[in-house]
């Protein structure tokens, strides 16, 4: 008989292994799903996980899609470590895109090297401003940032809809809901010819490195960590909870805002009614699959990005529905949560005590 029993100490090894086992189980289940759908599982897996990466363009797309996921997830992870639950990265991303676009449109067709940096800074500030609202509500009125940050996503999306349908609509665009196309000097430079790889991925990797330094090497990072692991100890040590909440939300708002302006000044090239297919929400999964650790998050973001590309390729080559992407993402999160149980618990084989069997006889 098997019994689940509490470990005396959470297993550090299991903490590392859980995401790897979850990913493996996801592959195995995916294999079975492909077989059930009547596809050759090996060929299907090759289409899903390998084919998107067999061309330079495909590799580029992997990075293009990784950038916003990684940026959002890094910021969120810093908050999650401190028990600050920013669920609204999608909204902060949207406002970042709006703020940066506002700068571009304000300058009109004036060409200058300073416009792109100004747009990026505006994007960061926009994301921070949007994240400051839940921070203020939490520290002032003890309102749950989970609810407020989530609700602000929808407000941000309405604001985006208003601007692209109204004041920021392209005057030459027959009334359609989109801004004018950005000029060349308002776009992030392409790094590799023949792909869409732009500076966004460089920012994302740089910030992943900085976030590692921040959490592991600075006192502010340490304070956030303690607040998350042991709130009472943090309070006893005199760490200000308010300061932590502000710091966590502003950082995650900043990175999400940068992701937003990176999308419109990158692969999209204009402001449209849709800026992101839900990167801000997917980044929550990325942060957890990556164990809230900078290096883990980089790997998780790459995997998540591949799931998107693979889902598209499976539709094209295998005629599978687009739900296949959601299926794999769901499997990954599901197995991760299941595996996480084994960080604190372990399976023990229970052998019946001989005394008991003797009594029965």
């Amino acid at each position, binding site marked *: 008989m098997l019994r689940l029993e509490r470990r005396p100490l959470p297993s550090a090894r299991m903490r590392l292994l859980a995401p790897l086992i979850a990913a493996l189980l996801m592959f195995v289940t995916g294999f079975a799903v492909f077989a059930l759908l009547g596809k050759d599982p090996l060929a299907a897996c090759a289409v899903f996980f390998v084919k998107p990466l067999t061309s330079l363009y495909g590799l580029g797309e992997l990075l293009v899609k990784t950038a916003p996921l990684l940026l959002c997830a890094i910021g969120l992870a810093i908050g999650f470590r401190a028990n600050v639950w920013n669920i609204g990265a999608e909204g902060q991303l949207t406002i970042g895109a709006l703020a940066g676009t506002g700068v571009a449109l304000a300058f009109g067709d004036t060409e200058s090297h300073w416009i792109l940096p100004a747009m990026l800074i505006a994007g960061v500030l926009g994301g921070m401003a949007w994240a400051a609202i839940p921070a203020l509500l939490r520290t002032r009125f003890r309102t749950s940032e989970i609810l407020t940050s989530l609700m602000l996503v929808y407000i941000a999306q309405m604001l985006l809809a208003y601007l692209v*349908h109204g004041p920021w609509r392209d005057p030459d665009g*027959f009334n359609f809901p989109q801004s004018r196309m950005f000029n060349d000097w308002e776009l992030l430079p392409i790094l590799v010819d023949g792909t869409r790889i732009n500076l966004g991925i460089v920012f994302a990797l740089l910030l992943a490195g900085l976030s590692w330094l921040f959490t592991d090497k600075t006192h502010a990072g340490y304070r956030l960590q303690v607040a998350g692991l042991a709130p009472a100890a943090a309070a006893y040590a005199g760490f200000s909870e308010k300061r932590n909440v502000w710091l966590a939300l502003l950082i995650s708002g900043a990175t999400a805002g940068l992701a937003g302006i990176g999308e419109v000044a990158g692969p*999209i090239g204009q402001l449209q009614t*849709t800026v992101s297919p839900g990167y801000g929400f997917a980044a929550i999964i990325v942060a957890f699959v990556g164990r809230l650790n900078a290096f883990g998050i980089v790997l998780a973001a790459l995997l998540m990005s591949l799931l998107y590309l693979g889902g*598209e*390729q499976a*539709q094209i080559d295998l005629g599978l529905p687009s739900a296949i992407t959601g299926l794999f993402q769901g499997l990954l999160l599901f197995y991760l949560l299941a595996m996480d149980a084994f960080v604190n618990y372990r399976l023990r084989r229970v052998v019946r005590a001989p005394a008991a069997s003797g009594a029965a006889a």
Partner: protein
Amino acid sequence: MSGLHTLRRLTRLRSTLTAALFAGFSAFAYAAGAQAAEPLKVAFVYIGPVNDAGWNAAHEKGRMELQAALGDQVKTSYVENVSEGADAERVIRQLAADGNKLIFATSFGYMQAALKVARMFPKTVFMHATGYKTAKNLGVYEASTYEGAYLMGVLAGGMTKSNTLGYVASFPIPEVIRNVDAFTLGAQSVNPKIKTKVIWVNTWYDPGKERQAAETLIAQGADALCQNTDSPATAQVAEQKGVYACGWDSDMKKFAPKAQLAASVVDWGPFYIKTAKDVMAGTWKSGDTQWGVAEGMVKVESLLPTIPATTRKAFDAKEQALHDGSFQVFQGPIKDQSGAVKVTAGSALDETQLRSLNWYVDGVDGALPK
């Protein structure tokens, strides 16, 4: 890989031949007839799920009609739920790189992406629905859904008792404003006293919001509703409250058996078949296609049997007139809300004016959101 190579070489050779033979035709009209054995690969890109009972379902039905009609000559595939942001360009490019020679991008927001990829794949034909930018190998196409809206208006105008009609509208873009106007003009053609009240829900698909909007319109006295959104929610509310409704993009009779006056549906099939045949024959040319009732792309079907004979007659007459081209929805005289004449008697709006239309006709209540 080598097969693809040969195909490409063949294509190139053939294109040179064609260009020589049909000087004057654009060079990319490469006549895929060369690969008689090889089916023409045709791909579709959808903004939503194929089973949405609305816009995407209609395109998917068109794809299946194409596959059924041309059988072995074509090989069709689709990608659904493709977001209009950064993803569209990758998906369209991937489809082109995988050897699809005809690609239909079926949402407005794919315009820039289609334009960019069309430049990279000059020998592939791209067709973009509801857009306005064309290129040598990028054509645009659209259904004159406003003709359907006009005919629904004729029915609604004939049936209303309160002389108040309601319209659940999505986004204030020309395509939708045009439908509100056409619906109102159609109703006025049988009942000059009617007013149309409009609620903008700023979404294509949100049953909750659509339901609320429909309830509000009924509370304001509307007793015949139409919608330019994708779910059957408006028709369902009408059924519950005992007023009339329209089916839009697909027949919604099963959701509103007593309320649905008729359904205005779009049949993309014939157009997809024609386009594929043109590409195979090498006669495809870029351009702007707008098909309506006359071409059988827009159809009003499933009319409620209880519609009285007078209204039915008015409907049949207008449908016939649209069919034979003796009548256009936006032919003068038409006044806007301020009473200013926008279209003079004897003239009609041309395609460019229709595509950028942004004013309400007289008879629509309220101001257009800016």
